[in-house]
């Protein structure tokens, strides 16, 4: 990699780091300061959960989209939901979802080649 390419890598890295750290520090200084905010602005509090929902929507796309992989996605989410309702935790629902998704994908390949 040439020197100019390294500069490009470092510029991307530094720019991305600034986008992560500067708004965080800015808000942390503003919160509970005498001249600043006492609480997170409402729109930001709403945007947080919506960003998670958006990341979920993007990640729902299977690696190899097909009717079988979409069915596996649906059943995997149902399994995740059922186990989450019982445990109200994160680890076990994820394990159940991945196991169900994997079983449907492997079963589909075994049945239909």
């Amino acid at each position, binding site marked *: 990699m040439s020197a100019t390419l390294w500069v490009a890598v470092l510029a991307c890295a530094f720019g991305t780091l600034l986008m992560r750290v500067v708004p965080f520090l800015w808000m942390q200084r503003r919160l509970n300061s005498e001249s600043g905010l006492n609480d*997170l602005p409402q729109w930001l509090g709403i945007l*947080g959960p*919506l960003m998670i929902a958006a*990341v979920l929507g993007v990640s729902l796309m299977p690696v190899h989209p097909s009717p079988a992989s979409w069915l596996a996605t649906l059943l995997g989410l149902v399994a995740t939901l059922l186990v989450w309702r019982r445990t109200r935790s994160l680890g076990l629902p994820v394990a159940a979802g991945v196991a169900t998704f*994997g079983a449907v994908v492997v079963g589909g390949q075994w049945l239909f080649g």
Partner: protein
Amino acid sequence: MTSSGSDSAAPHRHRHSGVLRGVREAIPLLGGYLPVSISFGLIAIQSGFTTWEAVAISAFIYAGASQFLFVGMITAGAPLWLVVAMTLLINVRHVVYGPNLAGLLPRSRHWPWLMHGLTDQVFALALTRLPQLEARTRFSWFIGATLLAWAAWILGTAIGATAGEAVTRRWPLLGEIMPFALPALFFAMVVPRFTDRRWAFALSCTMAVALLLTLGGLSNVAIPLAAACGALCFYSVKLTYRRGGS
């Protein structure tokens, strides 16, 4: 003596257990991180980068989609200023992550380097878990979760760059099944937020728009656009309620 010794050891114990808890709770992220970072390592090598260069890109930039774009545009011969501009443009969504976590984390001089670990997935996990943790363990939890995710991303890139083809040939289903850990994890995070019809509408709209944009090949802009649509839905329901009520 014993009492004072145990008192002075208590903060260390909390820090240690907080780090371990963060590591444990970030483990589901690896299901998504490892296959994607292995793919990145493989693609970087096929695009003419060396193993160390691929690992350096993962370690320093540490932002999945933008890394693929960076390597792709370099390979296509795009001007460097455009490569940097597009990479940063894709990462602009990170701007709203930090402020959401600002009130949940203590002040520290270490944030300038620790925030390097604030990816989409770490943000989602932190926003869900931090409010449920004691204030004194949150900082160490964040360190544990971010360091595990970062290390896995770098390790996956190194594996992909050195043995990516062999891994995908030997375990072809690995890259298909393990990434489902991410939607499963995010689903378990989003479900508790379906607290009323207004939130249900906004969250469902966001997920649907993000999925549709991804299906349309616009995954790079899907997250901010879908979240903006979700916010519009959220406020439009509020306006409808007000109009109906008046």
